């Protein structure tokens, strides 16, 4: 039971952070290896705001805003010019690796490599069917639910949401039907990185904050994206929960250190057997 709860908590974090990775992957047709480092960046901004006296709730918003600003800046300076040059998928992947190195080491440069925690009171967990749940874990699950619901409304009800879906479906069709592609891509970054940032701050609540926290989240995120079908946000959410659960449940039989390997094995199996993902999506 304890493992199931831990799995759900980690799973919902993987889910909300991976949505952005999935959307960008499909719309811009490249794997953003720096996505995990945006997650870590957000956690550190929240840490900074929080330790300089801000309440964690407002620190949360500051972190999301800062991450979005950084993401939009990168779109303007790097990704948009590269798209104009018709850069290949491979070029973009290698650039994202460079960006990942830069971001992570800026965090190390400023805050050092050691683990940090938010400045919040430690509250005791309560018993639930023989398992201990901390208030922070409850907070994470509730926040994830709200974010996913908000995303659903955005994608299905608003014009921008529909344009985002149209773009990830077929970028050329979207363009000739009069959608302002660059503007919608910008919105895709805003929503994707906003969610990633929210996930990063929440992740910091349930584990410690470390510069490589995003790196270790990257493989589970890839696994969730591939499991759910690239570009399918609902599939990614389900994939994230499945990966989170299987990682935690694996600790019942395997050493804890192999958690990471579980998502790798699941991902590789899906790639080999059903590369379009178990919930459909892009080929």
């Amino acid at each position, binding site marked *: 039971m304890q493992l199931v709860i831990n799995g759900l908590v980690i799973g919902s974090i993987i889910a909300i952070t991976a949505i952005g990775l999935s959307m960008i992957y499909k719309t811009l047709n490249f794997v953003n290896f720096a996505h995990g480092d945006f997650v870590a960046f957000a956690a550190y901004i929240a840490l900074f705001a929080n330790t300089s006296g801000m309440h964690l709730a407002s620190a949360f918003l500051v972190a999301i805003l800062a991450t979005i600003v950084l993401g939009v800046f990168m779109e303007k300076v790097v990704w948009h010019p590269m798209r104009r040059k018709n850069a290949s998928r491979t070029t973009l992947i290698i650039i994202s690796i460079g960006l990942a*190195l830069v971001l992570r080491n800026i965090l190390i440069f400023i805050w050092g490599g050691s683990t940090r925690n938010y400045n919040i009171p430690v509250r005791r967990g309560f018993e639930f069917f023989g398992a201990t749940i901390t208030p922070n874990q409850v907070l994470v699950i509730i926040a994830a639910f709200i974010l996913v619901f908000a995303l659903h409304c955005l994608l299905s009800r608003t014009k921008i949401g529909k344009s985002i879906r149209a773009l990830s479906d077929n970028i050329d069709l979207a363009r000739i039907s009069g959608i302002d592609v660059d503007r919608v891509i910008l919105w895709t970054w805003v929503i994707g990185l906003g969610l990633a940032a929210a996930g990063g701050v929440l992740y910091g609540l349930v584990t410690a904050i470390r510069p490589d926290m995003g790196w270790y989240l990257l493989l589970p995120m890839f696994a969730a994206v591939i499991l759910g079908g690239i570009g399918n946000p609902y599939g990614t959410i389900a994939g994230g929960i499945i990966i989170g659960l299987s990682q935690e449940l694996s600790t019942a039989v395997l050493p804890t250190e192999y958690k990471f390997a579980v998502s790798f094995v699941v991902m590789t199996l899906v790639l080999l057997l059903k590369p379009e993902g178990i919930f459909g999506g892009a080929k």
Partner: protein
Amino acid sequence: MIEYVDILLPYITTILLISSIYAIFSLGLNLEWGFTGLINFGHVAFLAIGAYTTVMFNMSGFPLFVSVIAGIVLSGFFGLLLGIPTLRLREDYLAIVTIGFSEVLRFILLNEQWLTRGPFGIHGFGRPLQDVIPYQHYNTFLLILYLVILVIVYFALERLVRSPWGRVLKSIREDEAVSSALGKNVFWYRLQSLMIGSAIAGLAGAMLAFYISYIDPNTFKPIETFHAWIIIILGGTASNKGTIVGALVFCTFLSVTQFINRFLPFTAHQMGAFRMIVIGLLLMILMMYKPEGIFGKKEELALSD
């Protein structure tokens, strides 16, 4: 004057030693990426397999030469194992799977202590001719040995990539569909390229182990793979000569930045981070403005799809 030589000579020897190891490691990746177009983000895994196999064979009583051969063969074999399921996948999937493979391997090396001594690492294994060469000249001897190996690997690779086999590789890189329409088994050629590239990385692993005479799993972090990527892109993709020059430039940069530490108000870990920021920016800027590298030819780029 004499004193300068006494300090400078070992320093230059060290840089050249590290450069030759990185050069061979990167030449393996250059065959895979530069000539075949495979995105291998887990190249460091084969460096680790080569190093650990060599060391463990030697520790269980095999002569050094046999151990190194075992390291090379096993690295190539793991390249085959990794390639069979993954080389049919799209290039970005290959990138994800290979980087995952190298991290999972590192976790296995860290945790299976009965086999690898885990985080404590392994030392006390044999080094080539260590009983014959006087200790103070050992690095000079190693450097000569490594330069000879580098020259052999370089000429072997040059022959390979200029052979009909190498031309098929390039044609696959440029257009997979055309090569398979001409009756070439694209998958098999890619597999061969990955195997040979991995075997070369295995050789570099053995060389690394002999040089530092101590290995532990954290010697083989993913960043080493990206060092090789930077070396190749710096020198010019699909240029073996460029890769060697790239390795020399990169390793000189690494050690010089350790040197200028004294003039900058950074702590040791800040200096390390600063160096990585420069490397990351360099990678981004090269890919954005000069993807053909310093010595590469623009037409040798598999980036225009």
